Structure formats: structure tokens, C-alpha cells
């Protein structure tokens, strides 16, 4: 065991080792970052064309999976007069540390249109809101997972377009992440073991460096839900429609803007700030999902659309495709 406790690394003095360790960390992080970005099989593919009629539901799903689809369906139902943000506050017991806080609920309107006009997926949300509920409850309930089951076809279509990270590449990326972690944690842990074995306890910097490097490695190199192609497509969609956000906010009657639903799907509820729907924006802005259902952080930050134009995703969002209005009307059908 002599070689284990006395070698080039074990005998290195503290400050020297920290410089060496820092260099190893930088090289490892750079190599892992480069590998995860450049070995993505979609990185050489051009993103799909931006559709002339973007499908808001498919965009929302690409951007934030079922949670974004739920938000969009609720917003669509509010837009069409089925639901409203209630004025009678209810207790939101779903949020950690804020149990019992009074919030404005989402509830049915008194004179809502005939729900038979709704698509199956919309009807599911409408039924779930038979009693007023806090927005936070949406993400704590079984509703998102039930919605996800209806979005299988959308998921499949996005995967076919190589917008989602393929499972085999996820595995490769995970291996890269594990290899990086082994180098960083292994080297630091080994030196820590040697130092403690020799009775030295000035290991604070070593531990901090190892922890920070591991955190950075995890944040930058963990496989994202969207492939490189998907991320680029999402960026392009947001870039293409960015200007419409301010136009909608400035519009005399943004409620009549047919593009509003697509913008919510593309950028999230924040686009509703300052419009007639700002109460909905505030309600959902506060209700951030706490589960992992948002997928990767990177994908949530941006947005998306679909190269396959409207109508298609409605069939999948709607499950059996019944009552799908198509296009920006989404799963409406009325």
C-alpha cells in the first residue's frame, strides 16, 4: 500500500495540490461541456422551419411538458369564458412554508358556454376545476400526469423531429457526467483521505473546490430534455415572435388577439403582464411547480413551436382527436 499513500499526488504540498486540482477541474469541466455539446447527434442538423401557423399546445409541450400544457389549457378556457380568476380568495395549502395563504382561485364562470364543445383534454381540466382551486394545486395534483398521457403523440412527433434528446444520447451524456464527477470527486476525495490520514485538517479549500466543481459539472453537463436541435428551434421561435409580445401588450384589446394563446405557449404567462389577463399571470406566476415535471431547467427557460403545423398536435393533445379546432384555436373545437 506504500504506492497508495506515497506518490506524486499524495506527496504534493497543499497549495501545490490546489493549483493542480484546480487545473484538473478546469480541464475536466471544459472537456465534459465540449463533449456533451458536440457529441449531440443533432448538433449538425438545421432546426426545422418555423411554421406559418404555430401550434400553441405543441409549443407549450416542447417548452415545459405537461405543466405548460395545463397552464395553456386553463388560459384558453379563461379566454373563451369557461373559467375565470375568482375574486373570493381560497386557502392555498400546497405551498411549502406558506400553508394557509389566501390566494385567488381558478374557478368556473357562472354562465360558461356549453362544455360539450370542449375537446377531451379541455374537458378533463374543466371537470377538475368543478370547485375553485388555487393555481398551486394544479401542479400538486394528478392533473399534469393525466394530461401527459394525452400528449404522447406530441412527444412522439417531437422525438421524430429530433427535438428531444434521444435516450441513447442521454445515456452517453450521463456517462460523460459520471466520468467527470469521478475525476473531480475521486481526485479530491483521495487527497482528502491522505490529508486526514496524516492528521492534517486544513482541507476547507479542497472541499469547497470539489463541491463547487461538482455543482458546475452537474448544472452544465447533465443531459437536457431538449436536443441541441430542439434548443435551437426553441430559440428561433422565440426570436421570430419576440416583437409580437410588446405589440400584444400595447394592443387596444389584447383579448381579441388570436396570437395571444401562441405567445403564452411560447413565452409563458409572463406575456400577460399588463394585459386584461394580468390576474391570471399573477396567479400562475406565484404557483411555480415544485415537482420535477418541468423537465430540464434549460428547456424551461426558452420556448418552442413545431415544424409540423397546426391541427396536428390538437389530435394528440385531445387524445382521440375529437373536437380539435386546430391551429391557434388549439384544442377548442367550438
Amino acid at each position, binding site marked *: 500500500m506504500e504506492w497508495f499513500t506515497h506518490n506524486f499526488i499524495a506527496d504534493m504540498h497543499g497549495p501545490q495540490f490546489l493549483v493542480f486540482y484546480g487545473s484538473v477541474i478546469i480541464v475536466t469541466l471544459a472537456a465534459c461541456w465540449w463533449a456533451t455539446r458536440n457529441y449531440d447527434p443533432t448538433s449538425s442538423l438545421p432546426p426545422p422551419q418555423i411554421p*406559418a401557423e404555430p401550434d400553441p399546445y405543441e409549443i407549450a409541450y416542447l417548452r415545459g411538458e405537461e405543466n405548460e400544457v395545463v397552464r395553456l389549457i386553463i388560459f384558453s378556457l379563461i379566454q373563451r369564458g369557461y373559467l375565470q380568476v375568482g375574486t373570493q380568495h381560497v386557502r392555498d395549502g400546497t405551498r411549502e412554508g406558506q400553508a394557509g395563504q389566501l390566494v385567488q382561485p381558478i374557478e368556473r364562470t357562472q354562465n360558461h358556454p356549453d362544455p360539450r364543445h370542449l375537446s377531451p383534454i379541455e374537458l378533463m381540466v374543466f371537470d377538475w376545476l368543478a370547485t375553485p382551486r388555487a393555481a398551486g394545486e394544479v401542479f400538486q395534483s394528478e392533473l399534469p400526469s393525466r394530461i401527459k398521457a394525452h400528449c404522447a403523440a406530441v412527444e412522439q412527433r417531437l422525438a421524430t423531429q429530433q427535438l428531444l434528446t434521444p435516450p441513447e444520447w442521454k445515456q452517453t451524456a450521463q456517462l460523460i457526467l459520471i466520468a467527470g464527477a469521478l475525476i473531480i470527486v475521486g481526485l479530491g476525495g483521495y487527497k482528502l483521505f491522505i490529508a486526514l490520514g496524516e492528521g492534517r485538517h486544513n482541507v476547507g479549500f479542497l472541499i469547497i473546490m470539489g463541491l463547487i466543481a461538482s455543482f458546475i459539472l452537474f448544472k452544465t453537463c447533465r443531459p437536457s430534455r431538449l436536443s441541441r436541435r430542439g434548443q435551437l428551434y426553441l430559440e428561433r421561435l422565440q426570436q421570430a415572435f419576440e416583437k409580437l409580445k410588446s*405589440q400584444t401588450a400595447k394592443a387596444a384589446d389584447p383579448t381579441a388577439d388570436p396570437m395571444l394563446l401562441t405567445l403564452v405557449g411560447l413565452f409563458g404567462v409572463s406575456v400577460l403582464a399588463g394585459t386584461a389577463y394580468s390576474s391570471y399571470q399573477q396567479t400562475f406566476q406565484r404557483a411555480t411547480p415544485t415537482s420535477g415535471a418541468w423537465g430540464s431547467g434549460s428547456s424551461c427557460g426558452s420556448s418552442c413551436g413545431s415544424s409540423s403545423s397546426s391541427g396536428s398536435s390538437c389530435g394528440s393533445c385531445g387524445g382521440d382527436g375529437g373536437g380539435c379546432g386546430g391551429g391557434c384555436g388549439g384544442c377548442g373545437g367550438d
Partner: protein
Amino acid sequence: MTIPLPTLGVGLGFREPFLGDLFLNRRQVDFLEITADHYLDAPPEKEKELKLLAAHFTLIPHALNLSLGSAEGLDENYLRQLAALIKRVNPPWWSEHIAFTRAGGVDIGHLAPLPRTHEAVEVLCRNIAAVRRHLEIPLILENITYVVEMPGAEMNEAEFLAEVLQRADCGLLLDVTNLYTNSVNHGYDPHEFLARLPLERVVQLHFVGGHWHHDVLIDSHSQPTPPEVWELMNEVVARTPVKGVILERDEGLPSFAELAKELECAREILRRHGRWT
């Protein structure tokens, strides 16, 4: 201009505020003209914008500041940047103005008319030859508006344009609004003017409307296209197979639906004369 050029249809001079509507109305815009100067030495956002546009539209770069009429020659740095951009975009043609924007090393900030002399024609041809050493992609030249007649003219405007196009062997980007504006401000018949132009060299048209200011028609690109310009466009399209028509709106931007109506009017003129299906 012996290179066969593709027919592009009816397009729009790209301006940033149109971006979102442009993608939602892509079927109504056959191609885009981009202001080349906006993408020279551009920040990353403009680079991304250019990539986005190039992935969805045929782009025609339109340069503003090459100053082809400058007797002192071209700004080599500007020319290199412009050539790099045009090669990257790889358009079927690109365009510049028959004008100068720089004199004595000073950028004068607008398109100034050239004296209509044989010497000015020589200067233009020399500068265009210099451009061609950097770029093989066909260059077409645009007629500009002018408020003041330059003294010492040896030929009239139509003769000057014809001479330049023939000597430089370039296509013409005929701005029918400029033609109409000059005819109004300088009191000549635009139809007679057209009759004296080598219309077979017309590749592309520009159209838009301007506004009146103290009895002078200003080419402000701020108004809907007036009937007189539509009439001139109709006459040109009837007589020559133009390859592309661009609506060039810059000021007082209306809703995209209004722009689309104008594009459709232009497309209808092309269809009427069998220039577009």
C-alpha cells in the same frame, strides 16, 4: 447582365418590427430585401436575425454606403465587409444606388446625385469594376431621387442611366416611386422617361409612397403606394419580365395586413402580365 436570374416574385424590404408578422404571413412574402449595412460588423443579435431570415427566405442584400459614384474610389474596408456578407447570403443578385455618399473622406450621410457627365459615368464604371474583383454575384443599380439638379449635365437623367447600365453592364433596380417623385418634382413625363430607358435591363422594382412637403414630393417611404406609381409599375411589368418587386416601407408603419394588401396588388400586376403564377 447575361446571367439568367431567377424570378423571385413580390417581397418586402425587411424592417425589424415586421419580424413576427413576417413569419405568420410567410406565404404572402416571396422574398426579402435586407439592408446590407445593418449586418456589417453586426452584434450577435443581428447575426442571429440574419441566420433566421436566411433559413426561411431568399434574401437580396441592398447596400447604402458603397458610394459607387465617389471619384476618390471605394472604401476598401466597407467593400470587404460587404463582399463577405453577400458571399455568405449568396443571393441571385444584390443592389446599390447610382449615387455617392462619401466625398473627400467624409461620409455625407445620404444618397447624393451624381453630375450627369461622361466623367461621372467613367468613375462609376471604374468603381463597379473594383467591386467585381471582390464579388462575382450580379450587381444591379438603383435610380435615386434628387431635389437639386447638379450643374454641368451633359445628358438627361434617362440617358445617364442608360449609359451607366450599358457601360457597366449592370441590371437596373428601377425604383418606380423615385421615378414618379423625380417626374413630379422636376416636371417631366415619367412615361416618356420609361420609353428612353433600356427596360430589358430591369431586374427588380421598388415601390412605396411618399408625402408632400411645401409642394415637394418627399420620398419618405411613409405612405401607401399612390395610383400613379401602380400605373408606372403596371407599364414596366407589361414591357419587361421583372424578376422581383419589393415594397420598401420605412416610416409610419401600418399593420402587416395593409402591407400584405399592397404586396397582393403588386402580385396581381405580375400575374396580369404573366410574370408570376
